[in-house]
């Protein structure tokens, strides 16, 4: 592909940068100078139609990705909140499904939602459901090839979790809170023990998103920790050091269940 910019497009490049500044930094002064105004609408008002439209499109998309968050705070609050998010984290992808990953991070320092202590975790939960649905089902590699890995390479070997599995730990019963907000749910928010910590698997089975609750037994907690450590692409050497005799069982269990899909030698 050829390089794009030459002197013929400098004016257009300036115009487009000025528009981006108007949309996301709310500095309309430079962009307005490019636009014709008339008796019906001033240049700034005409530019404002696009600014409103850009935010409207993105706010709507975020509302579809985070419907329970939207329901928890109401439409107006959600729209105003996401407008601030959009300005701070404008999209860099052409695919709507890839936009919104940063919302939980943004909310973690957004004081107006502090009154709902589980709000940030709900955003993490909804993003996890969304990402699991849209992520590609990872191909499972032939684990017999592990036998071909030399001892030297083993120290550098790490495992990869399936992209259609997310692990969520919350100090609140976010799974039940989410279910209580679903249409025709018999579960009521007032009946939920909100401050009960949960460890959740969110995963895709065929086209269905499934949510599994990890029990609080010592054994299950250790397995949960194992999967979390694997998700950080920890090397086999470090896994062996941390999980000792349990490691072969954990590896076997996670490969059989499809949580671990592949390995890499770094």
């Amino acid at each position, binding site marked *: 592909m050829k*390089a*794009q910019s030459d002197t013929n497009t400098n004016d257009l*490049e300036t115009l*487009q940068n000025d528009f981006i500044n108007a949309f996301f930094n709310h500095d309309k002064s430079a962009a307005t100078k490019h*636009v*014709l105004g008339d008796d019906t609408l001033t240049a700034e008002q005409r530019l404002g139609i696009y600014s409103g439209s850009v935010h409207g499109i993105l706010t709507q998309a975020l509302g579809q990705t985070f419907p329970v968050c939207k329901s928890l705070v109401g439409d107006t609050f959600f729209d105003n909140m996401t407008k601030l998010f959009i300005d701070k984290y404008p999209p860099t992808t052409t695919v709507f499904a890839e936009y919104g990953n940063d919302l939980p991070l943004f909310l973690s320092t957004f004081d107006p939602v502090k009154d709902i202590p589980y709000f940030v975790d709900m955003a993490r939960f909804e993003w996890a459901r969304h990402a699991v649905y*849209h*992520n590609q089902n990872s191909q499972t590699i032939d684990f017999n090839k592990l036998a071909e890995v030399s001892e030297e390479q083993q120290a550098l070997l790490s495992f990869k979790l399936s992209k259609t599995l997310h692990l969520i730990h919350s100090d609140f019963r976010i799974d039940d809170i989410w279910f209580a907000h679903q249409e025709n749910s018999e579960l009521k928010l007032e009946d939920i023990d909100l401050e009960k910590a949960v460890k959740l698997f969110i995963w895709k089975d065929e086209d269905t998103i499934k949510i599994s609750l990890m029990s609080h037994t010592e054994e299950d907690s250790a397995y949960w920790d194992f999967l979390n450590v694997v998700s950080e692409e920890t090397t086999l050497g470090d896994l062996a050091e941390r999980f000792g005799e349990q490691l072969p069982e954990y590896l076997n269990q996670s490969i059989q269940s499809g949580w671990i899909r592949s390995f890499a030698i770094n």
Partner: protein
Amino acid sequence: MSHQFSKNIIAGCGIGLRLDHFDEIEKTRPDIPWFEVLSDNYVLEGTSQRDYLNKIRKDYPVTFHGVGLSIGSTEPLNQNYLKRLKKLKDEVQPAWISDHLCWTSAHGIVTHDLIPLPYTKNVVKHIVDRILQVQDYLGEQLVIENVSSYLQFKTTEMSEWEFINEVTHQSDCRLLLDVNNIYVSAQNHNFDAEDYLFAMPAKRVAEIHLAGYEDRGTHLLDTHSRPVTKPVWELFEKAVKHVGDVPVLIEWDNDIPSLDRVIKESSKAKSIQQQVLSESI
């Protein structure tokens, strides 16, 4: 893979394939001649939506329609987007790929909206160069759609219809003629929609779009949230007289009604088109 797909003949009045209608379409396989697919929503590989599209493609002809190309942007063409689009095209084999004569991203930021361009000779040259690159990469003619607009630029040197003629002629691309967009822009900028319509290069028109707008008092907004309005149906009749028998598509993207309601709108377009074509024989 082509042997397992239906023949890709795009004719008659189709509708946009929307998530809200997935289940019903899969269960009832309604009598719709073709679907337009919002390609940007399907470029991720191995997803459930992609699987669904491949299932639909077995029974229906499809075209692709996107907003991510940003053909008018001054930043380099998005290689990742093009690569994903080509892979999707090779897999699904649409009859053609369309996008908009505007820009949607700049400075690394994607607006997801259709922002108009100043209509100048330099911009024509810039766009033509990019369309040629895209056509070369995809290995086929691109179909470019005229957009609705709510502002005009001080630096504009020519009318929008002159701009479209220059771009389509110099790049040898085809045209997706959005009749609703012509009407919306004509109302917003106080020009005669028929001047625009009859200046369109009829032989380059691959497809006609129809949709509904909202009247915001000071301007019309192209929301794709309503039935097609009376003045747009009237302009559509004139468009059919001008371009002849080309495929027509109903777009409905917001406040999406039942599948039956969208099909009803499509049937109305078909009826008007057939009436006009029969009168012109």
